[in-house]
């Protein structure tokens, strides 16, 4: 049953969001501290554990897989409901931030790949 997979996903979703709410309360910051990230972590751990116990059916995977394939369409829908007029006046920050960060990241890669090579030689 695919719905079991979706239900597993939903349980991780709530566990993560609730943990995020609790953390934001503890640290007295509005919002949800890392709920989505925790939910992803829970899903990795839970599905790994279920797979090891041979309880994770292929069908569950396709139930969750449907939502994975909807991720990009959802991001596109998200883009279409943004306040573009307000952002347009300060659009330069987006272009500059994206360009500067990405260009510098390219420089970082040789530094780290040299480390991998040293590691492999050892």
């Amino acid at each position, binding site marked *: 049953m695919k719905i079991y997979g979706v239900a597993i*996903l939903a349980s991780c979703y709530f566990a993560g969001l609730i943990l995020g709410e609790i953390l934001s309360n503890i640290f007295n910051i509005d919002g949800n501290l*890392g709920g*989505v990230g925790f939910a992803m972590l829970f899903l990795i751990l839970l599905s790994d554990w279920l797979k090891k116990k041979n309880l994770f059916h292929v069908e569950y995977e396709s139930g969750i897989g449907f939502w994975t394939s909807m991720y990009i369409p959802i991001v596109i829908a*998200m883009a*279409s409901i943004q306040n573009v007029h307000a952002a347009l006046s300060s659009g330069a920050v987006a272009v500059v931030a994206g360009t500067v960060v990405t260009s510098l990241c390219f420089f970082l890669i040789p530094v780290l790949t040299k480390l991998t090579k040293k590691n492999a030689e050892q």
Partner: protein
Amino acid sequence: MIRMIEDVFVKNGLIFSFLLVGVMMLITEYLSKRVFKNKIPGVALAIILGLILAGFGKEKGISNIAVFSGMAVLGGTMLRDFAIVSTALGASFDEIKKAGWIAVLSLFIGILFSFCIGSFVAIGFGYHDAKSIATIAAGTCTFIVGPITGNAVGASSEVITLSIAAGVVKVVIVTIFTPLLAKRIGLVDKNTAMVFGGIMGTTSGVSAGLAATDMKLVPYGAITATFYTGLACLICPSILFPLLKLLTV
């Protein structure tokens, strides 16, 4: 008659949004293949098209127009967060263990580096509140980490839009320059592909860029990039934002 048909679309807004996004992706995939010769991924074009459509509406983008109100459901935080969590299923700790400590290190360095540089740029453009700085900085991680962080910390919709745009710029640059720079930066085998995915993090850009370089490298880059998204969604709002808040107060 027209009124009647319009009513059908308004009443079934979410279903109409499936149709609409499907058509948008069809058009942008075609443009990506035929016009841009796969140099700019269809995903980036589709997000840009989404942002252009948003311009036809007001503060809630195109969903301000009744017929398109379903876009607010499909693109709202609930389904978005649910879908992004589901992508974690493709990631397994065994895979990352095989890649070794260098892949894990590249993830942390990649996120911290993007976040720090992104913060500096945001501050340079005159943003002073931690919420806006963190959201724009998270947007330079990926176009999804930005809005997730923005919603989590309560940033304004304007800043969230900017964070998506910053992430899209990253996708476009990574896609175009990866095949051109691959040899120079030593991107030749699966280990370096994993490091690359861990530093860049933007799954769509990494996959498209590696595909243009060497198809065999795609799954290795994609796996660390998936971890990147998860880790960034975890630490941007929970650790980096509070740190930034302490620093900016």
